[in-house]
């Protein structure tokens, strides 16, 4: 059993979580081209190594960021959105 250290709920079984994909910057849908939007929607970095991803603890619907190694399957660190993006941009923790 893999344990995910959730910033809100503490260490929980990873089966309680869903992976929401890479943390990436959303282009402005009003001004970006169709191709930029398509790349944002479909293209994945899919690295063999360290990746920052959105994860959600489904029972509490709590979203946070986890830094994970996709080769060793280690969860290196987890962050609240506020910690990750800084107080100016993040949602309240």
């Amino acid at each position, binding site marked *: 059993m*893999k344990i995910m250290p959730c910033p809100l709920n503490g260490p929980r079984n990873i089966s309680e979580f869903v992976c929401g994909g890479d943390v990436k910057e959303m282009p402005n849908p009003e001004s970006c081209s*169709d191709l930029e939007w*398509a790349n944002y929607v*479909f293209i994945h970095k899919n690295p063999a190594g360290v*990746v920052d991803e959105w994860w959600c603890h489904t029972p509490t619907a709590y979203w946070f960021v986890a830094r994970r190694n996709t*080769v060793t399957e280690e969860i290196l660190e987890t962050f609240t959105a506020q910690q990750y993006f800084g107080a100016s941009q993040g949602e309240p923790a």
Partner: protein
Amino acid sequence: MPFTLIKNGLKNNASDIVDFPRQPDLKSSYDVIIVGAGGHGCAAAYYLARDWGIKNVCVIDKGYLGGGNTARNTAIIRSNYLTAEGVAFYKESMDLFKELDRELDINLMYSERGHLTLAHNDASIRTSRWRAEVNKQLGVDSELLYTDDVARVCPQLNVSQDVRYPILGALYHPPGAIARHDAVAWGYARDAIRMGAEVHQKTPVTDVIVEGGRVKGIQTDKGPVYADKVLQAVAGSSSLLAGMAGLELPIRTIPLQACVSQPYKPILDTIIVSGSLHIYVSQSSRGEFVMGGSTDPYPLYSTRSTLDFKEGLMSHMLELFPFLSEARIMRQWAGMADMSPDFSPIMGLTPIENYYIDAGWGTWGFKATPVSGKRMAECVATNKQPALLEPFRLSRFDNFTLTAEKGAASVGH
């Protein structure tokens, strides 16, 4: 049935045929380099030589022949897909498969078993009917069965309505088959080598040489190798290799786990799949129950196995086959599946000139081995996207014309 088997069986001293002669040293250039010595890569080398006379071909792999997902799938072959594009494509593959053991003169143990995709709710019944009608229109043998007919086709199934997920019906695909997956890669590789190709195993590709938007060759641990054309067919490593060429792909690498039981006497002839329960099971010619489930819940470059997977798989499987409760698992493994957003492959031309891709094979690659080899060979030889591969071109993601193949693998999405 390959005739050499009979011929050698009747001889006193059957001659030793060397299937895989020692390969010459890696040359400094070839006409075509194929990265990935799995079923797809070897098939492409075979059809390049057979159909297009291109024999100065190097198949290169960091591992060994057929050691990746070719050896890790559950060997199911079927063509009962949902979209017209998908059905046409997989039907051609199945037609090629049926003649393949004679053509390659190797025993593929191609065995038509009948394939049941179980439906446990109204939505699945509806999809099954839809798939059956699409299939029939396109000449593929498929029909929707209700519970009593399901029980007639597969009397081993527990069709009791007094379970957590009762069986309401099934999509029945009589030509559904299994085959010996390793032999597919071996047969293609052997005949490709006979016609002049080289297969270099244990040779990692460290970079792809691209100059002025055109591919020039690859870097390996044994030095650079130049080629007019390069084809990548590397499944779970697709993003990494494409990254070396400067391409970003709409692919995530997610493990798909499977396992086999100890061997038992033949008892289950049909192939049973349930999308709702995330399981598929068949009994191999060796007597092992081959069992698989859904893909792992998150991306990973690893072939480890987990207890979670087996718990989830077994709980549902025992509901369908209570008699397996005493069966023991003998082996477990995983493959790294290159999942695409629309559960369809990504094949053909790329933005890099003379660089071709055969990827996005997720959980549905084995059954497409012959057709992908044949059509990728056509693509490489003609430098044009074959009509059959048009729906699967990489550029479909740029303009949102996805294939939406919900009939892909029956599990995990």
